[in-house]
């Protein structure tokens, strides 16, 4: 095994983690807005959020990635730096799924909780932020951590289109000169596993713990 190759893989792992975090941050923010919009009393906003969710969920991430990266450049507007393009595409994709997950969590807080808060004179936003969100948060943690695993693995799709130096991309580059696919893709797989497995374990543990509290 070549030490340089190993370092290159570790460098790719760093890229994967950075892209994952950025995706969660940007996609999470957008997803939160999508989830809140779907509960808005303002119908156009509600419909727009629902449409966004359905359209994005209906398009493969790879295609979103291609549109975001190649689109602007072809029309000569500007060339999007790979990390930015990857983040935007991943965030668009994640916002639709996280929005859906969180919308479901918000919806599953019982309606009488809304009523009780309303009757105490709380404004709409106070009801949401003080009563509904804290309860939905408990429900949201396990599926959200579970989705983070999917984000980490799906960052590999950015290697195909964008050429951002993450784990899969670097594994491919190494394989092109070493011709040892089992070794280097295997190592890449191991690295993904080492990041994802603790998250999965954590998600399962949280699920158990919060279920007990929610009895």
């Amino acid at each position, binding site marked *: 095994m070549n030490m340089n190759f190993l370092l290159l893989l570790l460098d790719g792992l760093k890229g994967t983690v950075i892209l994952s975090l950025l995706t969660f941050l940007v996609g999470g923010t957008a997803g939160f807005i999508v989830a809140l919009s779907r509960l808005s009393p303002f119908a156009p906003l509600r419909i727009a959020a629902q449409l966004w969710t359905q359209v994005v969920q209906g398009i493969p991430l790879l295609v979103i990635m291609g549109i975001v990266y190649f689109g602007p450049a072809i029309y000569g507007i500007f060339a999007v730096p790979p990390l930015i393009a990857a983040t935007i595409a991943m965030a668009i994709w994640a916002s639709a799924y996280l929005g859906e997950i969180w919308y479901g969590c918000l919806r599953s807080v019982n309606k*009488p909780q809304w*009523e009780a*808060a309303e*009757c*105490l*004179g*709380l404004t709409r936003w106070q009801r949401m932020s003080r009563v509904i969100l804290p309860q939905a948060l408990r429900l949201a943690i396990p599926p959200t951590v579970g989705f983070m695993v999917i984000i980490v693995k799906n960052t590999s799709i950015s290697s195909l289109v964008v050429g951002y130096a993450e784990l899969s991309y670097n594994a491919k580059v190494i394989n092109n000169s070493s011709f040892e696919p089992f070794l280097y893709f295997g190592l890449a797989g191991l690295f993904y596993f080492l990041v994802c497995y603790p998250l999965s374990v954590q998600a399962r543990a949280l699920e158990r713990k919060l279920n007990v509290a929610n009895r």
Partner: protein
Amino acid sequence: MSPIVEMRELRKSFGAVDVLKGVTFDVERGQVAAIIGQSGSGKSTALRCIDHLEKINGGELTVCGHALHTDKPDLAALRKDVGIVFQGYNLFPHLTVGQNITMAPKLVHRRSRKEADEIGREMIAKVGLADRWDYYPEQLSGGQQQRVAIARSLAMQPKLMLFDEVTSALDPKLTGEVLRVMEKLASEGMTMILVTHEMQFARNVADKVIYMRDGRVHEMGGPEILSQPSTPELADFVNEEF
């Protein structure tokens, strides 16, 4: 002084089903009114209309001076004047008893933490649960949760308290402890409207009994109508319930 609740020919339907078909009654300041009737008679719906949890379809309804039959009723003002307690308690499970009680005084009345705590402590003592201030709702019995819910409403210092079948989910022993709290409130002069199946309680505490049947007020009067009903329907109903 005008009545605290003035309901005139109130109508409410859910889709094609007419639940309230013209309900008329008044409740005066300081009165305790008990709404009784079979399931499906519209009694809970009538109560929920008073707090605008159901939008009314026709008739007139004025509560604490706020007209609810207008296009844009002043709900913020209404909710400051009216408290409601539900069958399912509906305490906020993520907050302690103290936080449940002091949240609305702080957010809606803009009281300082200290003021809100003082009011809250006073109210929790009134319902006899002063030692449960730091508990979470799930650590309390149903009767205790319901008493906390009453304290939570009282902390907003409402002019009118609504009780929507508040003891229906409780066993007889726990029912007793909740009813005692309500009796105490009534004796302190709180204006109360309760939807209830507790006939004994209605007879002992209510100043006014409203018997609803099929979306209308069928018979109304003082608590004596429970012992001497003038309509055969109320006589039947009373016989079944006692």
